[in-house]
């Protein structure tokens, strides 16, 4: 593979990287918000969230990104492809993250909350100082696991014309007529990124177990 091809490939890698990063950064807090809203047991909102999470986990990313990219303008919301891609990845990952957070919240020992309330802390304070630091640690392995799935699913955004790390290999082979090298290099880059996250996940898992909740 020559210089130009490598350069193009790295541009594709960059596209995948920054779009994934934005979706990951937004998806973690969004998932938490959804989990908290659900636990708050507000009548209609709770049901909507359950429906959303169920749909979000069952819908293929390819279908969703097409739906949002083609459908949003018809609702009067103009979306360029990058925004559409980020919104789609966000909605998808938030649905999975909501379940991860929910499991951590559910398994949080109620005694700690009671002790804090007895000490006069407000609910917001309890959440911020007592619950969040701990459920953050127990949720991390699951959240990182979901990050690996996001990166593995990110090639779906190619279908709305974004030249990500996967689609870029088509571009390169259209010029060089050698499809195999760029595909192999792209595969290697993905594996390095995901492999790093997997290793991180194992470390976090060990740390969470030491907290032994």
């Amino acid at each position, binding site marked *: 593979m020559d210089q130009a091809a490598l350069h193009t490939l790295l541009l594709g890698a960059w596209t995948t990287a920054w779009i994934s990063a934005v979706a990951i950064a937004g998806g973690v807090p969004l998932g938490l918000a959804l989990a908290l809203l659900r636990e708050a047991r507000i009548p209609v909102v709770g049901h909507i969230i359950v429906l959303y999470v169920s749909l979000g986990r*069952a819908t293929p990313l390819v*279908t969703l990104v097409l*739906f949002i990219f083609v459908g949003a303008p018809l609702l009067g919301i103009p979306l360029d492809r990058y925004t559409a891609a980020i919104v789609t990845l966000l909605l998808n990952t938030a649905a999975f993250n909501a379940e991860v957070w929910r499991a951590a919240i559910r398994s949080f020992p109620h005694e700690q909350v009671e002790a804090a309330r007895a000490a006069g802390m407000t609910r917001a304070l309890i959440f911020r100082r007592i619950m969040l630091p701990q459920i953050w640690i127990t949720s991390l392995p699951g959240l990182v696991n979901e990050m690996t799935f996001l990166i593995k699913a990110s090639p*779906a955004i190619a*279908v709305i014309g974004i030249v990500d790390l996967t689609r870029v290999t088509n571009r390169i082979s259209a010029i060089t007529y050698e*499809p195999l090298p760029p*595909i192999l290099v792209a*595969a290697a880059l*993905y594996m390095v990124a995901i492999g790093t996250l997997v290793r991180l996940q194992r470390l976090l898992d060990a740390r969470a177990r030491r907290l032994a909740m």
Partner: protein
Amino acid sequence: MNKWEILWNHREMILGGFKSTLVLFGVSAIAAFALSSLIVLAMRSGRGPFGRVVRGVVDGMRMLPFLIYAYLLYYGLPSLGIRFDAWTAGFIALITYHAAYFAEILRGTWATLSTGQAEAARAHGFTTFMMYRRIILPQLVLRAAPVLGNQVIICLKDTAFLSIITVRELTAAASAVQSQYFIPFEAFIVAIGLYWLTSMLIEALVARIGFAAERKGLGYKRAAVRR
């Protein structure tokens, strides 16, 4: 004519795509599971080179995006003289990719089984293969049903990626219908609904297996408790 009527008039396109998705997904999920139950035996075969290679390949697959793997089979292999049509490449990708994931799930579950019962099987005259089929594998399925179910749903969703390598499945059909007749919402809502329905059915099946497991004391929660 309203948009839903247009969609109804062209429903064979969507349903045809749905049928393709079901065939791809159904055949692949079953074949992948069958393949994985053999792979997990290879993974457990100790420190020899064969076991290590298999474990390495399985770990590798779990770090690879599905689409790039499909690309490799469909666009990459022709350089080496191996040419698959899109459907064949799709099947091979789905089956081998998910076999690796199923194998890792089964391997992890096997590690939680008590070792004595395999000895009891051997002491009663079971050959290794029979012991695996009658004693080990049923328990792996019972214990790992929820995780296996999740992986089956991922297999269903991965079929949509194949639309990118020109396989005419549900997402490709919905996309074709909506662009031809200008009914994006209706077409995609139905497609998403069909995916959702299928995964609900899978989860219902998993729940039934879960009930059987609970009855035998092998449920997800109870499996951790040993008397």
